[in-house]
C-alpha cells in the first residue's frame, strides 16, 4: 500500500465484490419474482392489497410501527401427524387391537404411550389423529402399515417453533409473502408481538380500532402507547356515527361525546387486517386445520 492508487483498487475490489453479491445478485435472483401458487390449489399468492389497506401500509410506515413490531414468523422445524380418515371394513375395536400389535415396533417405542392414551375410550369418531409430533419416516411407516390393513389415513405437516407455538402463524414467513409490500417492513425488535398474521388472529376491524385507541382496553398488560390522535372525539349529533367506537366505561368518552376513527385509523386497521400469511406454499408447507 505504497500509493493512493493501490488503496483505491483494494477498497474498490472489496466493496465491489460485496455489491455484486448482496445487491446485484439478489436483484437478478429475486427482482423479477412473480406470484406463486398455493400448495394443493390453483390460487395465487400473495394477493395485492387493495384500497384502504394499501394506504394503511403507508400509515404503518409513517408512524414507524416497525420499530416495535416484526412481520416475520420463524420456524425451527416441522412435525408430522397421521390422521385416520376411514377405517374401511375394520371395526374400531379391531383397529385398536391392531394398533396395539404395532407397539412392539422399536421405532414406535417413543409414541406408544401417546397412542394408547389417545385411543383409550375412543368410540370410532373420525377423523382421528393417531400420531402427532413425529418425524417424516415414522409417519410414512405408520401410514404404510395402516394402508396394508385397508385403513385410510392422511399425513399432515405441522410447523414447529416458538413463534408458531405462540400462535403468531402457522408456518415460517418466506420471501414470497412480501412481494407487494412497498416498503417491506420486517422490523428488528419485538417490543410488541409479531404482526405477520395479525389479520388472522384478530380479524375484527372494530377490535383493531379499539386496540389502536386504547390498547389496555383489550390487552391489560399491553405496553403499547395509545394512538388517540388517529381518532376524533366529537359531540354526538342527531344520529350517532356508525363508526363510533364501542369502548368499556373507563376508556369511553364523556357523556354526549363519541370517539370516531379518522381516515388514517381506518386505513391502518385495514392494513393490519390484510396481514395474513396463512396459506401453505411449496417452500413453506403445512397442513391447514380442517374447517
Amino acid at each position, binding site marked *: 500500500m505504497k500509493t493512493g492508487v493501490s488503496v483505491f483498487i483494494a477498497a474498490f475490489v472489496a466493496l465491489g465484490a460485496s*455489491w455484486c453479491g*448482496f445487491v446485484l445478485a439478489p436483484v437478478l435472483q*429475486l427482482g423479477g419474482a412473480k406470484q406463486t401458487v398455493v400448495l394443493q390449489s390453483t390460487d395465487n399468492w400473495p394477493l395485492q392489497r387493495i384500497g384502504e389497506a394499501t394506504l394503511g401500509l403507508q400509515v404503518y410506515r409513517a408512524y414507524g410501527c*416497525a420499530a416495535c413490531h416484526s412481520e416475520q414468523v420463524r420456524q425451527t422445524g416441522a412435525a408430522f401427524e397421521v390422521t385416520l380418515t376411514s377405517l374401511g371394513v375394520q371395526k374400531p375395536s379391531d383397529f385398536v387391537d391392531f394398533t396395539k400389535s404395532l407397539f412392539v415396533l422399536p421405532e414406535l417405542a417413543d409414541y406408544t404411550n401417546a397412542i394408547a392414551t389417545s385411543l383409550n375410550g375412543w368410540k370410532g369418531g373420525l377423523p382421528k389423529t393417531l400420531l402427532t409430533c413425529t418425524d417424516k419416516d415414522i409417519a410414512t411407516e405408520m401410514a404404510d402399515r395402516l394402508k396394508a390393513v385397508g385403513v385410510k389415513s392422511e399425513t399432515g405437516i405441522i410447523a414447529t417453533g416458538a413463534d408458531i407455538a405462540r400462535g403468531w402463524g402457522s408456518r415460517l414467513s418466506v420471501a414470497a409473502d412480501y412481494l407487494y409490500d412497498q*416498503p417491506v417492513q420486517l422490523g428488528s425488535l419485538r417490543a410488541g408481538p409479531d404482526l405477520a398474521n395479525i389479520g388472522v388472529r384478530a380479524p375484527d376491524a372494530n377490535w383493531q380500532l379499539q386496540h389502536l385507541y386504547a390498547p389496555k382496553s383489550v390487552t391489560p398488560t399491553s405496553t403499547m402507547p395509545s394512538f388517540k390522535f388517529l381518532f376524533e372525539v366529537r359531540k354526538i349529533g342527531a344520529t350517532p356515527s356508525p363508526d363510533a367506537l364501542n369502548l368499556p366505561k373507563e376508556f369511553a368518552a364523556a357523556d354526549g361525546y363519541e370517539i370516531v376513527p379518522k381516515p388514517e385509523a381506518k386505513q391502518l386497521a385495514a392494513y393490519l387486517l390484510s396481514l395474513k400469511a396463512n396459506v401453505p406454499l411449496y417452500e413453506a408447507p403445512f397442513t391447514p386445520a380442517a374447517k
Partner: protein
Amino acid sequence: MNPTENKTSCDRELNDSLRVPLLALFGGAAVWLVVGLVLGLIAGIKFHAPEFLGGCPLMTYGRVAPAANDAILYGFCIPAALGVMLWILARLSRQPLALPLVPVVAANLWHLGVFIGTAGILLGASTGHTWLEYPRAASVILFAAFLLIAVSAAATFGWRSEKSLYPSHWFLFAALLWFPWIYSTANLLLNSNQVPRGVVQPIIGWWFANNLVFVWLALVGVGIAFYFLPKIAGRPLASSGYALFGFLTLTFFGTWCGIPQGAPVPAWLPTLSSVAAALTLVPLLAILIVTAKTVCGARVSCMGGSFCYIKFGMMSFIVSGILYVSAACPQYSRILDYTWFGAAQTQLQLLGFAAMILFGAIYELLPSVMGKPLPLPKFAKAHFFLTMIGVLLFVVPLVIAGVVQGEKLADPSIAFADANSAALKFLRVSTTGQLLVLLGAILFAANIFIMTIQWKLGIAKTVIAYLKSPLETLEVKP
C-alpha cells in the same frame, strides 16, 4: 532557512485553512448530537411511560427512535469524522487544506440535509428502511455535501508534499470511497420511483446498514485512532504489517456481514453473511494487536484526556465487533434476533466507539486549530467520565435485556407480556445511561460553542479595531 521556523509557519497556515471548515462541521455536529440524544431519551422514556408525549403524532416512538439514531449517525458521527479526516489528511500531507471554502459550503449543506431528514422522519416522511429513513430531498443534499468534502480531501491529498502513505491514509481513503458508493446504491434502489420488489429491499437495506454502521464507522474510527494513538503516546504505530492486514481483512470480510440469520430470503445470503462475520474476527484481532502494542506501556497520564477517549473507543470497537459477530452465529441469532441485543450493539458502535474516538480527536486537534487551549478543560474531562459511565450503563443492561428477552421469547410457555416486562427492568438502567451520555454531550457542545463565540468575538474585535484605527496617511515622497 531555519527548519523549525518553516514548520511553525506551515503549521499556522495549515491551521488557518482548517479553522472555518472544522468549526462549521463540528458546531453543527455538536448540535445534532445533543438533539439526537434528547430524542433518544424521549424514545427511552416511552418504554417506562407509554403515554409520555402520547398525544403528539410527531413524537411516536416509531418516529423518535429512528430520528434519534439518524441524528447521532448522520448529524454527529459523519460530519465530525469528516472534519477530523480533513485535519489528519492536511497534517499528513504537510499542506494547508486545499479548496478550504468547499468544505464550509458542504458542512452547511450537510447540516441542512440532516435538518430536512430529521424533520421528514418526525413528520412521517420516513422511507421505512432502517438507517435510510431520510426522505429523498435530504438524501440528495447529504450525498452532494459528502462529495464536496471528498473533493477537498482528495485535493489536499493529491497536492501533498509528504509522499509516503501512513496507515491512517488507507482507512480514511477507503471511507471516502465507501460512503458515496453505498449511499448512492441504497438511495437509487430504495428511495426512488422504481423500487425492486419484495425482499430485495431489506437485503439491500441490510447491506447498506452493515457497510455504513459497521464498516464505514470502523474505517474512520480506526483510521483516526491509528493517527492519534501513536501521536499522543509519542511512539510509532506498533506494526504497519498488522495494520495493513487488518485493513484488508476488514474491507474484504466486514462488507459481507449484516444479513440476519433468520431472514426470509434465499438461504445462501444469510449463510454467506454468517461465514463473513466469523472471518471478521480476524481484522478485529489484528486491530486489537496493533492498538494494544501501541498503547501498552505508553507513559501518558491522561485522566480523562484524549488518550483515554480513544483507548475507550477502541475497546468498545472490539467489544461491539464481537457482539456483532456473535449475533450472526446461527445458534445465537435464533435467540438474539428481534431483541434489544441489536440495539445494544448499534449504540455501542455509535456512542462507545465512533463518538468516543471523535470526541478524543476533536479535543486533541481543536486547541491547535484555534491557537488557544480549550475554554473549559474541566468540562472535557467530566465529559469523558460521564460518557464512559453513561455508555456502559446504557449498553450493558441492553445486552442483558436482549439475552433475557430472547430466551423468554424462545420459550412459548412464557407469555409475551412477561418476556417484554423482563426486558423493561433493564431498560430503566439504560435510560439512566442515556441521560449521562446526554449530559456529557452538553458539556462537549459548551466547549465547542464557547470556542466558536470567542473566535467570532476575536474577529469582531479585530474588525472594530481596524475600523477605529486612524487612517494611514500616505507619505508623499518628494
